């Protein structure tokens, strides 16, 4: 449906990177095995480089597990890494190795990130973070996510194209200017 708003707004629960007082908050609902999310990963990196302190980025899980058989494990692995304060490191490694997301591959990435392997392997095996991943998924559905990746800029669903890097960065800059003029969305104010 149209006019979809991010529900719930960004909070302490989220994985956030970038400046806390940035005028623009970009939220992605993504799937580590989705090829479009892999493309979007590069676009987001460029946007982060371009906007610097003006942008804060949040990632929430939206694994389409029936279509992508490794997506759920990858999402849980990112959460298990988050428990060891290495969410973004794992997020990056997973997106850079989308074609190698078997359990043994993921354990290898965890090792290269110097995680506590005993804990990490235990969390994966016990699906410790399955519930958390599902909560992300549900919040995405509530927010009107209809596929991956879906982006929200300052709480509102971004309807434009992210594949065109220039347009995407332009949209983020516009949001920054609007914020600077004091036009803040509820989601942003609450975030």
């Amino acid at each position, binding site marked *: 449906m149209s006019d979809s708003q991010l529900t719930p707004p960004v909070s302490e629960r989220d994985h956030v990177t970038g400046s806390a007082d940035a005028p623009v908050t970009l939220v992605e609902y993504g799937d580590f095995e989705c090829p479009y999310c892999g493309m979007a990963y590069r676009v987001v990196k460029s946007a982060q480089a371009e906007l610097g302190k003006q942008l804060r980025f949040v990632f929430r899980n939206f694994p389409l*597990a*029936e*279509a992508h058989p490794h997506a759920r494990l990858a999402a849980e692995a990112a959460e298990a890494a988050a428990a060891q304060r290495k969410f973004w490191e794992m997020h990056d490694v997973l997106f850079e190795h989308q074609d190698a997301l078997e359990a043994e591959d993921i354990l290898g990435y965890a090792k290269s990130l110097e995680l506590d392997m005993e804990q990490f392997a235990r969390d994966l095996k016990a699906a410790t973070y399955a519930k958390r991943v599902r909560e992300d998924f549900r919040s995405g*559905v509530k927010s009107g996510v209809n596929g991956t990746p879906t982006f929200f800029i300052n709480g509102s669903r971004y309807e434009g194209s992210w594949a065109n890097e220039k347009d995407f960065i332009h949209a983020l800059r516009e949001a920054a200017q609007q914020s600077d003029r004091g036009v803040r969305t509820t989601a942003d104010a609450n975030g």
Partner: protein
Amino acid sequence: MTQPATPEHVAEILAAGTPAPDFALHATPDQILRLSELRGRPVILVFYPADWSPVCGDQVALYNEILPEFHEYGAEIVGISVDGAWCHAAFARDRHLHFPLLADFEPKGAVSRLYGAYREGEGTSERALFVINSDGIIHWSYCSPIGVNPGADGILSALESLNGKSAPAKAESFRADTMESRP
């Protein structure tokens, strides 16, 4: 694949409060599903233009992932398009779908027409959603621009509001008045 969406175009689909017309359609080449068989629990009808087209693919893939949430409301979901039962079978197998796709194939589009969800020019169903309550009354309906995946937030809100009123949390339970009339 799809016509460019014209924002002004809004099909006159059946509105909330209307009794949902009953129908019987092939769910597989040798099985027929009748809507009234699902009475007693909420039913989500998803009319969509075609198997295999990109937007529909995403849309059914999404609903497939959300099945546990739909089931929490005791709701059943069925997809309907004018594709034949064999086409549906191949599509469902390819996408690992866990809900039935009904073939509105012969006479073509008859059920879609009943719900006001048929596109004459294209000869396909609209991208229309209906949530039917446990008494068989349309509780909510929504017609999306043909090229836009409507997501599931509208369906979940409708199920939620239904739940507040009458819907059972489990498919097995019925409303008291329905219970009385049962043997």
